[in-house]
């Protein structure tokens, strides 16, 4: 009975896994959960680097059990010992996950043991006068860890600050992004990006390397629309609108060039679900000293008419005009991406076999990619600390999500620089 239901899966998503993962979310019989405690299957999808091993082991051991690990599109040598692997499509992956789940729950295969050593990391017993780890009420390491530190706060109450590394596989943040957050209450008083390049990349040059010769506008625009729709699905999921998230995911998996009516309906649905007033409006406004040029939808959502496509003759032939929105907050970015998805589908319908870009630069879905220049995601990550400081945790997550940071692109940008 237990093995018949949906397989609860916790996902470690590496490079090149974005679309595959979105398709997996649509599959019957799979439930992607937010915490390993609720999961029985650990899915490693896409490329992760050697540096990610430790964190994957942590996540694995935090699963409640019975647990099993499955790899999908995850090239050898694997960072961790996986039970089963596939390089096939979504159907194969779904089948494999469900079979492994069924087997481990019903005792056909043995549950996996822990991967990390089973030893107390810190010696603490018997140190203080009560054997509690240290002297005084706040000293020492009771139960193996110290207590949080006292620190001044912006409202003048010098209470505790709790430094905590969130990520790299925290479900609400981009996969591979680890933030070291100093929590004071639920406010992130200090934010640092822990950069370890955990996510591997598919091709070392990223999007730009594939632009040796001009690209078909039709393919480029469909990819853009798909990217934006997948982003919208993630945004809906973060806001708890599961029905729309599924609709956006289905739409992303089956876009028809020229048929943008469904995307329009999706945007209308988002407005009806009060996404703007309830959770996005007024969140994630960027500081004014950040250079927006080349940041694509983010810049255009702040009213900047900044688009490489406007300089391409082929685009002008099919009547391209950049869309912009005002406000520069998370809601403006949502409206911007929805409008760009509509526009991209229409452009793809009109493009025929026209080609554009190819001189080492391209207007990607997340902004300008140019040879020798950091990718938009790389630039955004360097600004994260400044942008996220002082935000309430929910607003912080919304802000990061609205920026659409792909850690694979960050790794590529760092490797190129």
């Amino acid at each position, binding site marked *: 009975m237990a093995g018949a239901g949906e397989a609860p899966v916790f996902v470690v998503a590496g490079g090149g896994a974005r679309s595959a993962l979105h398709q997996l979310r649509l599959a019957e019989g799979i439930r992607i959960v937010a915490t390993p405690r609720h999961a029985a299957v650990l899915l490693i999808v896409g490329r992760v680097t050697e540096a990610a091993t430790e964190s994957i082991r942590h996540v694995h051991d935090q699963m409640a059990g019975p647990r099993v690990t499955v790899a999908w599109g995850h090239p050898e040598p694997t960072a961790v010992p996986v039970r089963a692997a596939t390089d096939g499509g979504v159907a194969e992956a779904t089948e494999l996950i469900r079979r492994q789940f069924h087997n481990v729950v019903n005792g056909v295969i043995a549950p996996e043991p822990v991967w990390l050593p089973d030893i107390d990391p810190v010696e603490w017993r018997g*140190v203080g*006068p009560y054997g509690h780890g*240290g*002297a*005084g*009420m*706040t*000293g020492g390491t009771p139960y193996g860890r110290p207590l949080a530190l006292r620190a001044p706060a912006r409202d003048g*109450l010098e209470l505790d600050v709790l430094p905590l590394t969130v990520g790299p596989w925290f479900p609400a943040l981009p996969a591979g992004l680890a933030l070291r957050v100093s929590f004071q209450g639920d406010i992130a008083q200090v934010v640092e990006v822990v950069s370890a390049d955990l996510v591997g990349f598919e091709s070392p040059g990223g999007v730009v390397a594939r632009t040796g010769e001009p690209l078909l506008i039709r393919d480029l625009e469909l990819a853009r629309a798909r990217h934006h729709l997948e982003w919208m699905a993630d945004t809906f999921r973060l806001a708890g609108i599961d029905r729309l998230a599924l609709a956006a995911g289905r739409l992303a998996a089956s876009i028809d060039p020229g048929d943008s009516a469904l995307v329009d309906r999706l945007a209308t649905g988002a407005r009806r679900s009060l996404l703007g007033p309830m959770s996005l409006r007024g969140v994630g406004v960027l500081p004014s000293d950040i250079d927006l040029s080349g940041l694509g939808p983010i810049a255009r959502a702040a009213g900047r008419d900044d688009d490489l496509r406007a300089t391409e003759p082929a685009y002008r032939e099919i009547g391209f005009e950049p869309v912009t929105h005002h406000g520069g907050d998370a809601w403006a970015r949502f409206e911007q991406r929805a409008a760009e998805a509509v526009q991209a589908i229409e452009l793809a319908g009109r493009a025929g076999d026209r080609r554009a870009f190819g001189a080492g630069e391209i207007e990607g879905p997340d902004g300008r990619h140019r040879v020798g220049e950091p990718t938009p995601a790389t630039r955004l990550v360097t600004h994260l600390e400044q942008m996220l400081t002082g935000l309430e945790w929910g607003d912080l997550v919304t802000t990061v999500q609205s920026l659409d940071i792909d850690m694979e692109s960050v790794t590529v940008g760092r490797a190129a620089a």
Partner: protein
Amino acid sequence: MNPGALSYVLVSVFGVGAVVSGWLVFRTDSMLRAAYWLMVSFVAVGAMLVVLDAQFLGLILILMMSGEMTIMAIFMIMFMMNPAGLNPMVMVHQNRTAIAAGVGSFLVLAWVGLVAEFPDRPAPIDDPTAELGEELLGRSMLVFESAGVALLAVMIGAIALAAKRGRFGDADAGSVEPAIDIESSVDPAVEAVADADHADDADDHGAGHGMGHGT
């Protein structure tokens, strides 16, 4: 008024519960537990009121105290060091005097309660809530309205005191943290172990935080 055996049983159970949980408030290291033991004590007293036919007052006591005790837990966790009691907590002074005072007041009050003769005029059981409402809106209207004014004063006062910025600038502007050594002010009656612990805590307060103790 002829309270049945069941009333005696219930009053005894809830009474013992109220006293024990009230005592546990001061016997636990965790601030969360302290606040919620106090709430249990209030809930037990509320249940006793219900047994005494003051159903409305008993339930309203529970309603009010559940909200108030959560706020108390929040503030206690906010301001007490080591709020979860991960290290043992000793934060008492003049312990013996306090125990003597507590026991003494219990004995005196219990004695008064046991020996004094009270008139026996039991409450008729009709609708005490309605009576209370009529009292509030009739004879005691002034009590009711002045409670409103008092609550307004409390709201404004509490916000003015607690908030960071007020009409006259930052709340802590111009204040200085006193340089003190706490040992000299600790009551000698405190037990030796508590004293040792306490000196450490004083250090914590003075020198930032106790993180450096192990080193």
